[in-house]
């Protein structure tokens, strides 16, 4: 760790921000076309974020501010760990468990700040978000557990490199199709897209955790959202789609997966939170356990 690492980290953060925010903008346009609208400009998301940052804001006490800073800081730190294709800011730190747990810092910060506003809608949203997390994370972690056992590595770039050795058929999504499906469903939950978006339901609980945010707080939450999307989609790209030998390959895979999930999201209604839990524990968890069982006891797909 030296200054060069930090400089790389900063560059990586910038690149991730520009990439993901542009992609979000393009996806807004794609969704608009799906609904037969013209849709906003592709750089609309940038305008939204900068506008929110430029506005005045209100605060409900120091924990309200501190939580937002902690959330964005935690998520940015996690984004630094993520390899951007072959590029890594800090070598040797892309351990999947580290990423999964550092990600939680951001979640906790945001939850803390939201509850610190004193608004019950925020607390309800947080309680739903955490329940949702308990639902989607366990199937995902089970599949990841199987992968780690299969390849004796918990490093993202290491797992990606192993997949690339086998060419297209080496991708984990093809080697372990059950696990791939589980991961995609879990990713839908992680991104908070439909049908698992009951925690930010705007009409029922006034956008949940975000209810009290405005101005720079809201702008930072938008940044946070872009980064967490980047982290979560990157995880899947690295774990199941062979990562990227070049930056371009990584970006293409990333964009395809993200757009696909967005399209799926736009034709689905919304689960209630207990329905989401039941669904995740009935279908994806069962699939994940079967997949892990196949890997560990039968060695299926491990080659």
């Amino acid at each position, binding site marked *: 760790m030296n200054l060069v690492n930090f400089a790389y980290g900063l560059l990586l953060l910038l690149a991730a921000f520009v990439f993901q925010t542009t992609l979000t903008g393009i996806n807004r346009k794609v969704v608009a076309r799906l609904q037969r609208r013209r849709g906003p400009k592709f750089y609309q998301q940038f305008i939204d974020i900068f506008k929110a940052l430029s506005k*005045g804001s209100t605060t409900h006490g120091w924990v309200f501010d501190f939580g937002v800073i902690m959330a964005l800081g935690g998520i940015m730190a996690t984004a630094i760990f993520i390899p951007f294709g072959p590029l890594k800011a800090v070598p040797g730190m892309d351990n999947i468990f580290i990423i999964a747990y550092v990600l939680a810092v951001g979640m906790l910060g945001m939850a803390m700040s939201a509850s610190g506003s004193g608004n019950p809608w925020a607390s309800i949203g947080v309680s739903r978000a955490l329940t949702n997390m308990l639902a989607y994370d366990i199937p995902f972690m089970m599949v990841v557990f199987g992968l780690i056992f299969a390849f004796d590595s918990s490093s993202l770039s290491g797992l990606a490199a192993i997949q690339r050795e086998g060419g297209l058929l080496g991708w984990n999504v093809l080697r372990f199709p059950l696990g791939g499906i589980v991961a995609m469903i879990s990713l839908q939950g992680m991104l908070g897209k439909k049908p698992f978006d009951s925690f930010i339901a705007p009409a029922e609980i006034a956008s949940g955790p975000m209810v009290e945010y405005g101005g720079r707080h809201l702008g930072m939450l938008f940044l946070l959202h872009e980064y967490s999307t980047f982290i979560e989609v990157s995880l899947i790209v690295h774990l199941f789609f062979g990562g990227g030998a070049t930056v371009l390959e990584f970006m293409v895979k990333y964009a395809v997966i993200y757009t696909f999930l967005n399209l799926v999201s736009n034709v689905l209604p919304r689960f209630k939170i207990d329905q989401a839990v039941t669904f995740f524990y009935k279908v994806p968890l069962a699939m994940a356990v079967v997949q892990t069982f196949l890997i560990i006891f039968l060695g299926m797909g491990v080659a």
Partner: protein
Amino acid sequence: MTTNAKDVRKTWEKIADYFRAHSIWMKWYCTGCGAIEMPPTMTSRFDMERLGMGPMATPRQADVLLITGYLSAKTLRRVIYSYEQMQDPKYVVGFGSCTLNGGIYFDSYATMTRLDHYLPVDLYIAGCMPRPEAIMNSFDTLIKMIEKGEAKGWKHYQENHEWYRRNQLHSLKEVYVKDEFHE
């Protein structure tokens, strides 16, 4: 419009105004029948998102308070409360002739006749009720106004707060009331 020292914007304010003009998040205060005109404006026929506009869930997140329809004494209190919860810079759009001059029920004991008496309205959309074309046109105007820095209602409200407050108190007696559910 006269240009004095106060109206000269700094460069960063110009940039900020560009962003503010092209990303308009609205809080719809759907008090009256006018709200029915918003869905067609939002959906594929007129598609307001292409101008960077969209509805928001709470006043904290919103830039524009869109008041669609009649305001009674009771709702006006809530509207003022919502307006004060919004973050600067904020804009108010009065929608329909009812906010403009009281519309057909101008002589009712319960309805407001003039919104700009209580809140700094940046833009009125006349009509009973205005069609989506009128709405889109007016938002186009609003975007231009914000970009030029002419939509300064929120500053006017800050500077003339006493005047607004006096008007509010004259018509409403109290803005922050305690109603029966909180006795």
